[in-house]
């Protein structure tokens, strides 16, 4: 079996948001929507700091769908629109989504966005990968782990574009894949482990 996953090096992540925009471009993500975003952990503003001057610190947390092994969103979806595919990715069948937003309440990571209205694109055309399906108003959407790219054997766009090489993508079921090795050797951890969702996105320092 293949189980796609990712490991993100927080030491190398400089919070540059390149992955956030790469994702927006690749997936034709609309105005005021992000599938991927780099957070400044514990800060009240983006690029803020934690602590008292001059003892400050700042760490970045790139966050998107965690492609959980036990996805809370999938369980609660009434129509099976959210599903776990054969590559271990959590995907959405927009044709089946009735817009009930159970998944959004269930996701502990707030990874999902909802199209409250017909998506507005700036610039006004469908930029991005031609294979990415269009979304209409009334459906939920989120990171697909670049299904269209990974199906073609390419790495996700955020991995490809990261200027720091902070992202490692691969098959978690293959112990020899780079991502498996990194997770094993660099004490990678999962976000909100206590939620029991078993994310396939790992973080390491």
């Amino acid at each position, binding site marked *: 079996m293949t189980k796609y996953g990712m490991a993100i090096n927080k030491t190398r992540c400089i919070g*540059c948001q390149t992955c956030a925009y790469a994702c927006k471009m690749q997936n034709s993500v609309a105005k005021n929507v992000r599938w991927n975003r780099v957070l400044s952990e514990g800060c009240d503003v983006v690029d*803020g*700091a934690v602590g008292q*001057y001059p003892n400050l610190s700042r760490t970045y947390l790139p966050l998107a769908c965690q492609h959980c092994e036990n996805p809370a969103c999938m369980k609660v979806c009434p129509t099976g629109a959210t599903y776990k595919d054969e590559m271990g990715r959590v995907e959405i069948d927009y044709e089946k989504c009735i817009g009930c937003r159970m998944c959004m309440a269930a996701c502990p990571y707030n990874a999902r966005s909802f199209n409250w209205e017909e998506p507005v694109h700036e*610039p006004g055309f469908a930029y991005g*990968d031609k294979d990415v399906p269009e979304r209409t108003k009334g459906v939920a959407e989120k990171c697909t782990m670049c299904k269209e790219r990974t199906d073609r054997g390419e790495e996700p766009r955020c991995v490809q574009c990261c200027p*720091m090489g902070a992202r490692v993508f691969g098959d978690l079921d293959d112990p020899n894949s780079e991502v498996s090795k990194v997770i094993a050797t660099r004490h990678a951890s999962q976000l909100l482990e206590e939620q029991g969702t078993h994310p396939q996105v790992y973080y390491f320092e």
Partner: protein
Amino acid sequence: MSESQKTLSRRGFLKGTGAAAGALGLAGLAGVGTAGSLLSPVDAHAESEERTAHLCHQFHCLTGCNLKCTIRDERISIIEPSDIVKDKKHSTICLRGIGEVSHIYSQDRLQVPMKRVGERGEGKFEQISWDEAIKTIADNLKETQQKYGEGSVFIRKSTEAGIDFDFITQLLHADAGGQWGLDRGQANGLGPAFGPWSYLSNRSHWEFKDAATIIELSHNPLESAMVWSRPLMDAKEAGVYIVAIDPRFTGTAAKANEWLPVRPGTDAALIQGMLKAVVDNGWYDEEFIMAHTSCPYLVDRATGKSFRSSETMAPNPAVVSAEPVGAPFVWDTVTNAPALYDDPAVVAALEGEWTVDGKQLVTEFTLIKEWLDGITLEWAAETSGIDKQAIVNLADRYANNGPAIIDIGLGGADKYTNADVLGHSTAMLVALTGQYGKKGAGYASYCGLGASNPSATLNYWTLPEEYGYGESPVAMYDMPYKENSIHAALTFGDAFTLEAGAAQDMLNWVKTLDFFAIVDLYHSSAVDYADIVLPACTKFECEENVKQLRDSMGHVMLANGMVKPLFESKSDLQIERLLAAQWGLEDLLPKTYEELARFMLDGVADADPRMEGITYDALLANGGVMALPETGDDYMPDGTADFFLTPSTRIELYYEYLADQGHALPVYEDANEAFETNPKKAQYPLYFTQGKSRYRIHAYYSAAEWFQEDFGPSINIAPEDAEVRGISTGDDVRVFNDRGSFVATALINRSLQPGVLFMAETTYTRYYKEGFLQNVTNSARLERGYSMFFGPQIPYNDVLVEVEKA
């Protein structure tokens, strides 16, 4: 401003439907109001046609990534790292490259030629034809030159506009505005010591991991140049100790092992504290000093002049004056007499004082020691705000703990009047500790320029001899303050508000010009002041299939697969040709970018065998990208300390040319405005600083709607400073001083030193509620700067302000 333009453009569309300007241009005009209709709607992707194109991106971040663009239905739909560069480490992109998808099609693109109908600054325009626009510009420039002489016309092409050529200024013998005054403050101070271009490193930044310590001095590469930051993060992962010296808790400081929050404009005091510790504790490298520096050279104590030979000349001329100078003498301890510095038989004294023919001769090192005797660590600590022990510890770590690199920023500390003192002090610290010219050691700005990559040999298109730049008696930034003969101006890009401080002085002066035309991509701040506005196209667009030929990252890159210029915009080359035609001179210019590129490559292999096989046709066959032979992971230039472009070819620490001004040694002085004891602080207690943001390069990318979602004109203020003023995040606040004011959104951010404000460098006035940040910046000039290599620098950060709720 924006409203009037929208109205104009809609009307323009209705008027212009008859004179069809190409389907795309019209579609664009029709949709000015809404990005949604910027281009005709796209049907299902599947039936669309796709092609790919490659080009070299931004020069101005000093990176120049090769980008792969996917063009679908003649729209740039995907931008990604190039897959045809030779090595993976150059397959790079950052958010600015990706953001071009938004930026190219931004609503604030200039779309059609316009002429001003309101007052200057009012921003009221009317669409005109290209013919009328070009003719109006030419008529006005001709008339001005006839009336007031050739030097009465000022023309400047900003760095990014039309890289590698600037024909029209030379064809008209126009004034190009002299020194730029941008970000070479430290370079002014270190150049005489290490050579004029030594602010760029002579070794690769991929060597960062071989250092034991890296000091990021007023440099924030993790936000200003993400693509060049990879080696820094490699170093961090390899356990290199990184120190960030910056008034602000920058992205780089956040990744550093240690952050030293210096007070704005006082970095030199900290470095001098380190120098003091190094010299007092004997942490200097005597062997290096004797072999590679001017420390043993003799100086006439009475005159402050170097004691030089009148017969033997030094190998190089003086750095600043470019005049030949005599070879310096040292004190030979064998003969007990002065001797030429490079005489192999001589055993030179490092310290001492002797009398020869009534002259008191003293070594430079003795003078340095005497100068340092007058400095205390307490003073350094008090001035810079950095704890005394921290200064000593850093000096110890730097001098005694293996190879160390000082990586300086271009900007930051350069934007204070005393930046040359910092450059000079740091040059001295590096020279005395010998942290230069060996693996893992160095001192420069490790940016995209310099030695990190091999560079190509290209031909440069030259004009016949009779054409060239006119005299520039007054630098552009001084024009509002110094008498000058300029009566008309043409700028490619927004020179007036970006390349000068105190915008109100500058713009008031611009208003007095007889004529001002601007060529720009976006509705930048200066556009509103122009009489004629011409829309240029981005580097992704061209009338032909190819565009610029560039040398970047060890590759020759030919932009190809362009989309047609959007709206009614034109490429720089065609705009210059249209202008030149008004003087009948267009035949002196290349007809096309293809002709220019072919010329640049023609026969270069004869001069440089490394260029063998890199021809125009070969480039096109290779997607427009070909690597130089040395390019690759193992390219590591072996920059040494054996030769410098100084008169004696060694590091020269005593600045004879500044002796009369009391700065032969880096004597500390306060910045012009930004210093603790400035009485002005009573009225304007806050330091106002600006710097690079990842979302922009200077003002560029301001118009990208994607970035606007995240980042607008906001002023970062420390919680302490906000609290006493009753300011909360999101409030509109007025920032003001005697020079002017502006209104921006407050953002309370604790990653700031209390008492210091920070704002990302300027953006277009249209995005502010009122004014813009350049209204408060400083236009003071350092008098001795006029005698320096890069001239006086614009002290953008040497600014005190007060903030209140608007």
